[in-house]
């Protein structure tokens, strides 16, 4: 069994792991250890349970069966399994988007939700060709929401947001026949192909998976982001703190967890209700403190500066502090184990999604038509629970870090030019000149197979030191923030000289928090804007940019990886896709697919090596664009490009 210091680099986690061990409690890490050795067939992608002629499994060493009962090869079995992961991941983001769209419809009809960013609503309506002149916000909201809903059931044509991609990128999709038609259609189509005796060509299955993934990135995820911005307001830069130290010993702590902010937005509003604050005080609390785990946390952090208690592997630890009066969960990445640990403390676990119920939890289902009332009720229950704390078991690590959050594709314009000179030009110039060597998106989860946060932080630091600007979302964002990488001051410590000059000129932290995992769509738009600004190629694949998910574990991450590659981003995964028992499929994903999309996957568990793969890719793209190498000397020198200070200067 690993020690806490082997399980995590986060001091708060380490402290709490000691604490839960003392209390005789178990966590995901313990369950992971108990699971060893894990199934090798599963890890290699060679187990097929798609029909009851099976289960079938292929012997990776060539001694046993080389095909399933139906004749499926290792490549086909792994491809179908992987495709199903993509389908589930895309479904998660997209169904999230559907709920947001429904909340927007509710807003259009009056009620608790209102339009917070009318300007963005109008912009989106215009983008979608919806008449905006002389129309009320609710009319517009209704039309936009209905148009968005139409994207799910659309049968032909292209999803509307694909028009945001550079023309050459779209051309690639057309040539490869992967233009996503309708969100639900692509998921169904993909799943259909994985049925026994369906699509038997592993590459064809993968191309269908790419199409479904694009329906996530440029469909479901982007709809979720855009409509949430309209409904809950578009983020602006703000300060906050993160890690378990944000929990308050003397206040009612309500921790939201999951991914959909529809209810948590209401909780933010309700937590400021005077009567409820008074009620909390009457129970001996000094106030009501909201914080969050995972992406629900990121959502309300981005829009309201609500502090983040932790990322995925800290959900149980938060409860183990003994001060969480309620944990309000919605959907995705909510461990079923929460009910057990909540039961060992006074914590009320409240499930709220009609799609995700947790045995042992109190279920208070979100109803958009009375969302505020429900939110108040949840807060009231939490307050009522405050006196039930066992103060003797309270243990809050005194660990939290400040951060800046709230970066969007839109506010890059104002960050760089203010009201009168909004432009991406300084960013493009910085890349062209070699001050910024390239752009990286580092995203993903936590995974007990990897020391918590270690991969995120190491890969990010290596990129920063080599003048690569990092954008991040999700649990990576929380990891980086906990490590202090999202303070503007961090540029001085971690950024290379070129990147530091840009951070100092603009006032940026070297790592940009761009939101929740659906908000990777923001990064797609940002990169498209960079292409549109000019000077860095004609499509996303031309950019000196790369992506990584060092500690990924979820099916959503697979969908994201697929749309990243299909969009043209070289993507390095810290945990390999379950395809390594399928050599043909592995070759396809890590090599051949580059012919089609200009990008491919790479698997590398060593974060520094992973960062260097990304940097090699960035350097190669710079060379292809005839750009100079990095402006200043970097710890990891380019292998090919000319040294410093030429063309752009």
């Amino acid at each position, binding site marked *: 069994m690993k020690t806490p210091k082997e399980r995590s680099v986060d001091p708060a986690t380490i402290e709490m792991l000691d604490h839960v061990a003392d209390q005789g409690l178990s966590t995901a890490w313990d369950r992971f250890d108990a699971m060893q050795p894990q199934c090798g067939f599963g890890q290699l992608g060679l187990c097929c349970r798609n029909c009851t002629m099976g289960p079938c499994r292929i012997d990776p060493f060539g001694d046993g069966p080389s095909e399933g009962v139906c004749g499926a090869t290792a490549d086909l079995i792994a491809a179908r399994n992987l495709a199903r992961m993509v389908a589930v991941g895309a479904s998660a983001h997209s169904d999230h988007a559907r709920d947001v769209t429904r909340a927007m419809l509710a807003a259009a009809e009056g009620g608790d939700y209102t339009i917070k960013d009318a300007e963005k609503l109008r912009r989106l309506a215009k983008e979608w060709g919806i008449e905006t002149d002389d129309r009320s916000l609710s009319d517009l909201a209704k039309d936009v929401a209905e148009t968005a809903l139409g994207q799910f059931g659309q049968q032909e044509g292209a999803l509307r947001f694909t028009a945001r991609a550079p023309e050459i990128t779209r051309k690639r999709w057309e040539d490869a026949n992967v233009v996503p038609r309708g969100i639900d259609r692509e998921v169904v189509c993909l799943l259909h192909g994985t049925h026994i005796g369906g699509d038997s060509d592993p590459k064809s299955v993968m191309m269908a998976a790419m199409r479904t993934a694009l329906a996530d990135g440029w469909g479901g995820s982007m709809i979720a982001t855009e409509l949430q911005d309209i409904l809950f307001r578009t983020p602006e830069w703000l300060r906050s703190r993160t890690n378990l130290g944000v929990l308050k010993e003397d206040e009612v702590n309500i921790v939201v967890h999951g991914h959909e902010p529809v209810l948590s937005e209401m909780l933010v509003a309700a937590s400021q209700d005077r009567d409820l604050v008074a009620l909390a005080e009457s129970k001996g609390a000094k106030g009501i403190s909201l914080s969050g785990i995972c992406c629900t946390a990121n959502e309300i952090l981005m829009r309201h500066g609500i502090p983040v208690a932790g990322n995925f592997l800290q959900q149980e630890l938060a409860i183990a502090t003994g001060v969480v009066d309620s944990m309000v969960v919605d959907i995705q990445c909510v461990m079923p184990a929460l009910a057990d640990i909540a039961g060992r403390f006074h914590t009320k676990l409240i499930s709220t999604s009609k799609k995700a119920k947790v045995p042992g939890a109190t279920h208070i289902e979100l109803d958009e038509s009375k969302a505020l009332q429900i939110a108040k009720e949840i807060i009231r229950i939490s307050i009522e629970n405050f006196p039930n704390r066992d103060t003797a078991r309270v243990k809050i690590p005194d660990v939290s870090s400040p951060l800046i959050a709230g970066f969007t594709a839109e506010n890059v314009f104002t960050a760089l030019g203010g009201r*009168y000179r909004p432009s991406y030009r300084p960013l*493009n110039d*910085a890349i062209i000149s070699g001050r910024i060597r390239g752009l990286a998106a580092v995203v993903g989860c936590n995974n007990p197979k990897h020391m918590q946060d270690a991969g995120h932080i190491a890969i990010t630091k290596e990129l920063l030191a080599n003048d690569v600007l990092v954008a991040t979302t999700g649990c990576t964002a929380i990891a980086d923030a906990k490590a202090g990488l999202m303070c*503007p*001051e961090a540029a001085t410590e971690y950024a290379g000289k070129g990147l530091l000059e840009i951070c*100092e000129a603009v006032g940026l932290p070297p790592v940009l928090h761009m939101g929740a995992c659906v908000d990777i769509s923001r990064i797609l738009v940002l990169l498209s804007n960079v292409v549109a600004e000019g000077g860095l190629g004609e499509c996303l694949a031309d950019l000196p940019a790369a992506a990584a998910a060092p500690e990924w574990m979820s099916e959503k991450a697979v969908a994201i990886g697929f749309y990243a590659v299909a969009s043209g981003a070289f993507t390095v995964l810290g945990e390999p896709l379950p395809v390594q028992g399928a050599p043909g499929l592995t070759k396809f994903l890590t090599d051949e697919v580059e012919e089609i999309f200009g990008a491919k996957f790479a698997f590398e568990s060593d974060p520094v090596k992973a960062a260097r793969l990304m940097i090699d890719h960035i350097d190669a793209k710079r060379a292809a664009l005839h750009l100079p190498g990095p402006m200043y000397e970097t710890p990891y020198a380019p292998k090919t490009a000319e040294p410093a200070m030429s063309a752009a200067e």
Partner: protein
Amino acid sequence: MSRVVISAAIRGATAFVAEAETNLDAAIRDRGEDHKVEFPGTAFQLPMIHALMGLEVTTLGGLKPVIAHCRELLPAEPSEKLWLPYLGAGLDAGVTALLAMEATCALRYVDAEAIEDGFTGFISDTILRELGIQLVDGRMPGFAAVLGPAPTDEVALHVVRELQKRSILTFLMCNSDGVSMRDQLARQDVELGWDTYIVPVGRDTHSAIYVLDWAIRGGLTFGGHKKGDWESCLRYCRERIFAFGITFGPIPDDWYAVGAGAIAMGFPVISDHESTPEVRPTGVTTYEALVRQTDPEQIVPTCIEVRGVKVKVEEVDIPVSFSPAFEGERIRREETYVQFGGKYSKAAELLETAELDEITDGEIIVRGQDIDAAEAGGVMDVGIHIRVAGRKMKADFDGIFERQVHRYCNEAMGFMHTGQRDQIWCRVSKTAFEAGFRLKHIGTILHAKLHDDYGAIVDKVAVTICTDPAEVQDLIDHAVPAFAARDERVAGMTDESVDTFYSCTLCQSFAPNHVCMITPERLGLCGAYNWLDGQAAYEINPTGCNQPVVKGTCIDQQRGEWEGVNQFVYDHSNRGVERFSAYSLMENPMTSCGCFECIVAIVPEANGVMIVNREYPGETPIGMPFSTLAGSVGGGAQTPGFLGVGRLYLTSKKFISAEGGLSRLVWMPKDLKEAMRERLEQCAADQGLDGFVDKIGDETVGTTSEALLEHLAKVGHPALEMDPIF
């Protein structure tokens, strides 16, 4: 680091806003909201507010929304720790400062606060447009705004001379402990003013707005961008106006605020002080935004590099500085070492085509005594005989090249040249003489410049300069018949005698839809290019801005409309102008870029037209001074009833012949009338208009339509009897 800079700029901007607000409140209290506010000599009210906010502020009350916008835009200072992105905020602060400064300065004009002697204060539209042609042809590659005095008088002199040498227009502003760079230069007897390219604008920081107001009008005037189209106006400044700032000494908050505003307009700032943090990343400005250069020797070269100014420094090997900046330099009698020509002695210049084997390139011969022989303050006879050979050279070009002698010679510091042909008058200053300037250097200049400007045509240039009176007389005797022959050739040309006109799209970099059509009887509206120039320019550079336009089938002889011309104009005006009449004011008239010498405008009450030249500052009978008229005529749009023209067009037979020609002319400024009297009288006589010139009204008969009509009736002006102009 940038945060320090931006914090200072925000503090500076905050103070500017507070000041403007206080001053405006006081002004409204004292004078009321309806009290008029304006800068003198501009059609753009308060230009920065006009361009960025789209507001035409004419009253004190009109400034209230400006202050409100400043308040809204003004950001908070970035915090000491955990700051939020501040670059955009810094630029917003800069823009805020500009708007607030402009308001404050406009209020000073309301109070009729005197502009200190030797400073310009607000810079009028007239000056902006006068320099337009130099902007276009690259003679003036950039503009420097110098903030504060240099550490020593010597550095001040060095820096302005370096700028002058590169023909960069230099504005002086701001002070340190009350001392302005103007004072430093005055102490060293440096000639200041528009002619020498060194223009003191004001002593305080606020005066910087006058220069930035000048720059922003570039986009409005030459770019044709509309008020409130801040994006285009600011992009124009960044891409087209090669301005930069130079600061001396530690930069105070208010300078930082102005600097942030300048950077928001795309103009970089170069500081000489070690305490200034650098902002090197590019993108807001084309190259670096804020750069430190502590070596006085390197300040100007650094500026050139940072702004990306394109300077063509011809190394003309003479002992004095050589640059267009010295073109307007006057040499006063007491400064004169020697002079020739004018009313004092005989002097002439002649340029002739020679065969290639007749002359040796670069041969410069001085015959007779050089100026050493003269006493200080003396007089000499001088003849300058230039012979040019080239495979593409032809006698048609003689006059064109010869006319450059005036410009070339004047660019030498300490040498003054006026007149032409056998009417020249030149002076050499004592300073130039002491520096070693001699007659042969005139040859050096002409050789270098003719090669440089007309290298495609000119292969060999030889210059002989004589001073022996008999020899000078021989040259004149030889030249006079040559001059007469040239006149005959040019004067004899008519639009009918050629099948090809020449276009000029030199100004499309400023007015993208404007096409000038140059015909033998209608010169370019700037007055600087005639048909022969167009032809020569085309031969020099066949892919350049002057293209031959085959007239094609005539559609209307009276209006001057041809199929070929229409097609060319349509194709080259971004399909903006479909039809074009060469001789009409009213129907499809020619567009204007903004560089016109004069404006012809309809005077409906008088059934005629008036003409007003750029130099005339006063009111006109149609109620608008030149500057206001210019605002509506320029930018490349057809404006029936209004026409930008070169003054010589007035005496062309084709002058608005569609509307009846010269006899429509009812009013013109007196100075213009007198300057052109001889030509006008000849032209009137040719058209049978006896005593016509004195019937034309001018400002002495009035600047109102009533006074003008009274005058026209009294003198029996023919326009009153003509067919209605509409």
